[in-house]
């Protein structure tokens, strides 16, 4: 049992880029294309890490600090997230707050790194990012509060493994989390990772000027963030089986993650992006779902 958290941490580090491959393959399937290889992001990372870099003359050390702080922060988040019914490598009462706020630290540095270029495109992306994040934050914490009350624990490692699948409260909270997940990871309907027009981008445009190893760190951090928030949803919705070796639960958890990736791919294939001015409404809906979940738990 003791090795489970470390194995899960390692799995997260190893498999996070795979999720994006699965999402892209699903989208390709819906579009009738062959699509890029499932392991494409791994090849991209390997190639970027071997490259040199081009920095804008305008930028300072803040620009270079963005990717490294982002990776350090998301690694802390990964260490706090439980997986497959086992506790996280690091867990304590209140770790859910630290999870939310290290992701906030990552966002802060991504945004200031974007502003460091002085580009209007990146300023625009940064402005949208902080707006959506500010509105997503209450929904995230409210959903976590509902789940925490349901489980009677203040630690993610107490909340997720105790999650009862198919309970209406958790389903609502998970619904809110799915919206937050799509928003925070810049997926359709909030952002389109495939867009080629700088004016319409959010996350992609903030990292427009990063290149080489910096870009590799950013892409890998984004994959890890997808994994962390995905594990939160999977942990709430996918049941863990008692009385079997932990490896079995790990496999169930992995299957859940892959299923989530497929679902994201399907969502991206069948829905269009909402207009930017409508995004806050969607996030308010997430808040409403989370509030409803909380009221149900309170009852």
């Amino acid at each position, binding site marked *: 049992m003791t090795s489970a958290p470390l194995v899960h941490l390692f799995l997260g580090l190893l498999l996070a880029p795979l999720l994006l491959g699965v999402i892209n393959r699903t989208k390709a399937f819906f579009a009738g294309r062959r699509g890029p290889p499932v392991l494409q992001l791994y090849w991209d990372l390997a190639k970027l890490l071997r490259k040199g870099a081009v920095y804008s003359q*305008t930028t300072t050390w803040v620009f270079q600090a963005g990717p490294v702080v982002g990776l350090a922060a998301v690694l802390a988040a990964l260490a*706090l997230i439980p997986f497959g019914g086992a506790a996280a490598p690091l867990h304590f009462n209140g770790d859910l707050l630290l999870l939310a706020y290290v992701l906030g*630290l990552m*966002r802060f540095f991504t945004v200031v790194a974007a502003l460091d270029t*002085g580009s209007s*495109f990146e*300023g625009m992306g940064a402005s949208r990012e*902080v*707006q959506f994040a500010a509105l997503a934050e209450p929904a995230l914490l409210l959903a976590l509060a509902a789940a925490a009350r349901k489980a009677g624990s203040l630690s993610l490692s107490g909340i997720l493994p105790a999650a009862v699948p198919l309970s209406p409260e958790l389903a609502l909270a998970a619904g809110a989390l799915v919206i937050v997940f799509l928003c925070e990871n810049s997926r359709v309907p909030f952002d389109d990772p495939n867009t080629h027009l700088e004016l319409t981008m959010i996350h992609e445009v903030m990292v427009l000027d990063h290149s080489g190893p910096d870009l590799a760190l950013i892409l890998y951090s984004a994959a890890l963030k997808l994994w962390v928030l995905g594990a939160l949803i999977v942990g709430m919705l996918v049941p863990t089986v008692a009385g079997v070796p932990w490896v079995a639960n790990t496999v169930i958890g992995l299957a859940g993650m892959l299923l989530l990736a497929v679902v994201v791919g399907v969502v991206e294939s069948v829905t269009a992006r909402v207009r930017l001015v409508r995004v806050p409404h969607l996030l308010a809906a997430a808040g409403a779902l989370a509030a409803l979940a*909380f009221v149900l738990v309170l009852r």
Partner: protein
Amino acid sequence: MTILMLALLLLLLSGVAAFLLRSRPTAASVAGAAGPVAAAMLALVPALTVLRGGEVLSTELPWAMPFGRFCVQLDALSALFILPILGLSALGAVYGIEYLRPYIGKYSIGSSWLCYNLLVASMVLVCLARNALLFLLAWELMAFSSFFLVAFENRRKEVRNAAWTYLVATHIGTAFLLPMFLSFGQAAGSLDFAQFAGCLGPAQAGVCFVLAVIGFGTKAGIMPLHVWLPEAHPAAPSHVSAVMSGVMLKTGIYGLVRVLSFLVATPGAPPAWWGWLLLIVGAVSGILGVLFALAQHDLKRLLAYHSVENIGIIILGLGVGLIGLSAGAPVVAALGFAGGLLHVVNHAVFKGLLFLGAGSVLHAVHTREIDHLGGLLRRMPLTGLTFLTGAVAISGLPPLNGFISEFLIYAGAFQGTVNGAAPVAAPLVLVILALALIGGLAVACFTKAFGIVFLGEPRGAAAAAAHESGRLMTVPMLLLAGACLAGGLLAPFLLPALATAVAPLAGAAAIAPLQTAGPLLVWVSGISAGVLLAALLFAAWKRWLLTGRDVRRAVTWDCGYAAPSPRMQYTASSFAQPLTDFFEVLLRTRKHMRLPDVHFPTAANIETETPDVSRESLYAPLFNATGRVLSRVRVMQSGCIQVYVLYLVLTLLVLLIWKL
């Protein structure tokens, strides 16, 4: 206690010395700054001893004043406030020596130092006083000395207006404190604080609670009583803004907490509505504070609104504590109070730092207009680095101190939300919501403030020609930035001190639950340190990867446009626009636009301003109405001396008849 009295005396002496040396401004600055520094060093020992659980110090000096006694006491609560007061004042004083230099010959430096020292001394006395009369006298001395400090640049009209607004607002607050202290005095039969605890009946206690919230809240700057804050802070010299925003507002919190400690001793107190009231006040101040900050174009005004936000967070913490007390949940109470009080200290550190940083920018560029700045990190590396530290800290992000106090308040709220009954969980989940929204908006606001001011290219010639300030200004900022980091990484060691300070509010029962929070803070600080270390390691790794490779410099990607200019950068107003538009109902931003209307437009512009809603729709109508009513009285002022003589005779006659 003798040491503290000596510190007060030193402050007075140094202030007077600076005043006497006013014809030689440089000497006056040194003499004026020496007092706060010496006082801070002197007071460090007794304050720390008391906070570490040492004996409470008290003394009484002879004072011939009816109902007044000069009794002073240093307990853990006072010590918790005195430490940041003296610490920040000392650093502000050192900073002020250099900051005031350009004003030599234009304004009186010596008088400014006299007021500065009086302000510091009166703040310390407010925290030490144990007699209502002494407290109020110190309170008024504080108001007047800070009034003169705000009015430093008295030849500018907007500065004079700001100072008058401040003076009026602060006295409205005091007007609510007088009846409160009087009802305490009447019930206790004495104006000594020692007799106040639990002397009131439940109904009276409720009234006094509301009076205290309004009276002390005006000083602390809660919405909608905050009108003076966004006026006075930008008008004052920056080291004074730092002291006023960082610690003077906190004397309002101190007063509220002190009075609460009397009130919670009332049998049956506190009723649940006290907690609710504080939660609502805190949430409104917090959310509206940060929203108005987001809409500002003036760097110091933005910081002033952030003080409103942080006071909101502190009040939320106190509210969580009261809810915990009334529900009989000592863990919730202890965490809420401890978080609120720790945020008092933390806010003093990072808001002091940010105001000093803004002052450094003002010193170099001579404008506070955010949209005229840019690219200052290259030109002012130390100011930039420390401002970034303050920005991360005030956004409540790990690994810095702001996260620790917010974590404690959150932890208290979550504790009650998860384990409490519905009447406890319902208000506390509102705290979680409010804190989450405030946190998200604060990130938006400070990425804007730091990003637009310090990053990118300069948006004007003045910003391009900026230079770093001298050591007297940068060293205090570096020390405060260090304190932000220390407060985040050494948080577990602060808990015992907090426990002693919280005891008068939450009772001795609070100490045990707070100690259970110790291991949590060890985790938080440990992981924060890990994040910091990992970031440094990754940075080193990246540097190692790039050695020997092709690393080039080029222009920022601009979609292939051939002639990028600094004017094409995103501005602070456009950065904040999506959020200010979304919350338009609350902000009522005014837009003046000239849209491009022909096929080949030559000129178009947009101007936005966000006036204070509370000033425009609460204070202005109120004062205008008062003015109209009182102007009728003017009929009596005919200017004719015979009529005045008639008034005198009539008054005498009435008095004679009345006494007959």
